[in-house]
């Protein structure tokens, strides 16, 4: 099976810092609308990217003073692809699991949100074997 053709929409590189996310979200929102997603799906895509970046900021870079995130947004004929790349130590993918929602406690919801909001969310090897890439896709709902 050949990979679906992708059109590059946007690539953002920014410090993995909470105060940058308010700048990133409008770009993601614009890209999702550009692809033709409705407002509800656009909100979901923005939230998923926010959670993915938050995981990088809080978990991937915990032992490092500084780090960057690269957000690559691409359009496919049937939807959108978003890749969140960090340059921190490789994470243990098996340890990235959503928590039991019945366990009421603050935190631990981000991974659950990403899986609920997107059609796929997969970790890929980092570029040149460094860091982590979370690739998320969402397909356009076809109106019948």
């Amino acid at each position: 099976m050949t990979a679906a053709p992708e059109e590059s929409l946007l690539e953002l590189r920014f410090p993995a810092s909470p105060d940058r996310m308010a700048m990133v979200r409008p770009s993601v929102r614009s890209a999702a609308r550009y692809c033709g997603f409705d407002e509800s799906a656009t909100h979901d895509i923005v939230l998923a990217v926010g959670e993915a970046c938050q995981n990088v900021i809080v978990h991937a870079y915990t032992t490092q003073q500084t780090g960057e995130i690269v957000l690559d947004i691409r359009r496919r004929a049937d939807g959108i692809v978003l890749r969140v790349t960090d340059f921190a130590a490789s994470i243990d993918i098996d340890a990235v699991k959503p928590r039991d929602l019945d366990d009421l406690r603050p935190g631990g919801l981000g991974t659950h949100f990403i899986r609920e909001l997107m059609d796929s969310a997969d970790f890929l090897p980092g570029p040149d074997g460094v860091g982590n890439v979370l690739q998320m896709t969402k397909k356009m709902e076809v109106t019948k």
Partner: protein
Amino acid sequence: MTDSIREEQGRLVVELDGEIDLDRAPQVRRLLLDGIKHGKDLLVDLSQVNYIDSSGIASLVEALQNASKGGISLGLVAVSPEALRVFQLARLDKVFAIHADMESALAAAS
């Protein structure tokens, strides 16, 4: 961001607005935990919140747990569609008391 806190009919009303993300969640958390210290039932108006993520939700969950420990209630009021979507994703829409508007929230027995 113009979060406000006021007293109304014996309850403490906290109005949050804008985007509650990892950057802002600590301020919201502090506002709510300080509010709980007053010992009055809390109503949190989310009508003007157009974005909330897991860190914002975490602040509200922590506040709810602290309120419960202190024997006071914490209800959500006029939750915006964007925020409600996130509460539903977290399956917290059944954990928090959610009131349609301030009038019904104030009328409800705590």
